[in-house]
């Protein structure tokens, strides 16, 4: 499809386990176990999931900070997994990442100026006045004052540090911005500002966003499409409004209900999932969610992996509850 900027197909990442570590018949951590999705240019796509879902690993693979074990990543139609190091270096200008913890993603020994200037120095060989001018423009775009350029990270607030990270990421004029929990280290009152800012930035600079978060409220607020991940697979995907207001998969239902609602009346019908999230070293057979599923059918869930079912509204779900097409 021509307007798919990024097209991820059957992505896999299995981390091998050392011999003798596990007696299990699987000798690896199947962190990402067959993930497919695509993002249209200018869209905001959310990847949501709890610990062990594999969402951060997916982000790292797209940037090839981690090599995939299988699958393809098509950037404007070309598989970047097959790129050489130098081709990849060029491509990396197009996709940048904003990291989760603004306190640790900036070099504490570099001034703001140096951190923001670094990509420009490496990729464009800029220096002197030209470099200074570009950095000043970036500072303005992210709403920081000129005097902040000569401060060190520890002299800035969390929100300001995050903006420095964004300025740095924007310096090479990327087309895709991957945001890994961009607001989870920020206070609530700052979070709203940051998300509104990110939205206006997207419009201004024609950016495409891939948002990764465990915080459904953040994803719901910012993304038009969402994929819910569980133990390395996407179990439900679709328009954000649809997925969150009428979730199909039992896990999505529980996830949506689990969001603590800041209101006096709490929802009556809660779903409490039994037990803990299984380890990615020991993924349950059949449907990987069956060990905690409140709507488990029976043996089919324990033995067979569900196949993806597609709906007319563009959503999809992997669940045996939808194994038969509804007629009429």
């Amino acid at each position, binding site marked *: 499809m021509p307007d798919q900027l990024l097209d991820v197909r059957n992505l896999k990442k299995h981390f091998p386990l050392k011999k003798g570590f596990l007696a299990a018949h699987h000798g690896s951590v199947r962190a990402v176990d067959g993930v497919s999705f695509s993002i249209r240019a200018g869209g905001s796509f959310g990847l949501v999931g709890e610990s062990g879902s594999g969402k951060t690993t997916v982000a790292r693979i797209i940037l090839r900070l981690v090599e995939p074990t299988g699958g393809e990543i098509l950037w404007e139609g070309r598989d970047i997994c097959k790129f050489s190091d130098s081709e990849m270096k060029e491509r990396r200008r197009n996709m940048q990442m904003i990291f989760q913890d603004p306190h640790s993603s900036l070099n504490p020994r570099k001034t703001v100026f140096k951190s923001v200037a670094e990509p420009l120095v490496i990729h464009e060989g800029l220096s002197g006045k030209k470099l200074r001018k570009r950095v000043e423009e970036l500072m303005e775009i992210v709403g920081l004052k000129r005097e902040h350029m000569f401060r060190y990270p520890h002299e800035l607030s969390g929100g300001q540090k995050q903006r420095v990270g964004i300025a740095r990421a924007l310096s090479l004029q990327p087309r895709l911005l991957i945001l890994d929990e961009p607001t989870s280290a920020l206070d609530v009152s700052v979070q709203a500002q940051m998300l509104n800012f990110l939205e206006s930035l997207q419009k201004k600079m024609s950016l495409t966003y891939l948002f990764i978060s465990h915080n459904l409220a953040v994803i719901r607020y910012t993304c038009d499409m969402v994929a819910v991940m569980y133990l390395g697979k996407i179990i439900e995907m679709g328009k954000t409004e649809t997925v969150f207001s009428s979730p199909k998969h039992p896990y999505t239902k529980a996830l949506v209900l689990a969001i*603590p*609602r800041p209101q006096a009346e709490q929802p009556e019908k809660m779903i409490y999932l039994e037990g803990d999230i299984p380890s990615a070293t020991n993924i349950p057979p059949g449907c990987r969610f069956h060990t905690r599923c409140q709507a488990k059918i029976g043996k089919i869930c324990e033995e067979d992996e569900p196949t993806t079912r597609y709906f007319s509204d563009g959503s999809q779900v992997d669940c045996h509850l939808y194994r038969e097409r509804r007629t009429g």
Partner: protein
Amino acid sequence: MELVLKINDLRIEFDTFEGTSQVLDGIDLTLERGDTMGLVGETGCGKSITAKAILRLLPIPPARIVSGEILFQGEDILKKSEEEMKRVRGKRIAMVFQDPMTFLNPLFTIEEQLVDVILAHQRGNGSGNEKRGMSRKDAVKKAVQLLGEVKIPQPELRIKSYPHEFSGGMRQRVLIAMALSRSPQILIADEPTTALDVTIQAQILWLMNDLVQRYGHSVLLISHDLGVVAKVCKRIAVMYAGNIVEDCSTAQLFRRPLHPYTQGLLSSILTFSKREGEAQGIKGIIPDLIRPPPGCRFHPRCLRAMEVCKEKKPAMIEFEQGHWVSCHLYHR
């Protein structure tokens, strides 16, 4: 209703390299028996300091209790000796912290750690009605029973595990079990679910409610998350820069927030989608407590600040039954 905890005009300062930080600016708090109270605020508001002050866990120096009292069942905590505090901590007031991994010793089994806590309060407890010298066997039995109370499956087997063999949610359950092992009057929980996944968080919050129903202890739940607090607490105190700005029931807070900061916090909460309306933040940043703003500490960020706000700190007044607010807008 029996008053379990009453904090009067507590002021605490911290000596730092850059100067003296006035972290608590005279707070008043009341906790009655069976109350579930949430202490809500963002970074630097002083909520964790308040919790630690109650248990005398603040390092003195650099902290300094300038004035005030913390009355626990009528006795001033601040006047107790360290020996007396040992009988209060863990036994009459217990605390659960944010990150369950750092509060469990990785080298000992869950059994050893639970039994340690159960037996630790055997010597010199002073309350008179304890079974003196509980045997280790009985302590283990009690430990298994406690794990069952916090809904750990197959507790008699799991108790032999080491902390790293437990997930985050299960470790937090162990800590809650430890905290409740001596039937305290107050359970203080400082961001108990912040480090946990959202579905696990829902389980733990349900558990906390369940335990309160069964044991009737009072709870002081500290969190930056109004949603978390709404699930467990019937009363909420909102803190900003070392002050309590609003103190009311949960229903009152959501129905009719009075203080501009509370209103700002509520409007920062993300709506269903951008299409429904933008979430507003609160402009500005948290003040430096070494040189805090004069008068009301929130005035530099307040959209409704008046002249008097810059000069005089507003007193706490009862606007409607049970609903207290510290703001010049409501002074008659």
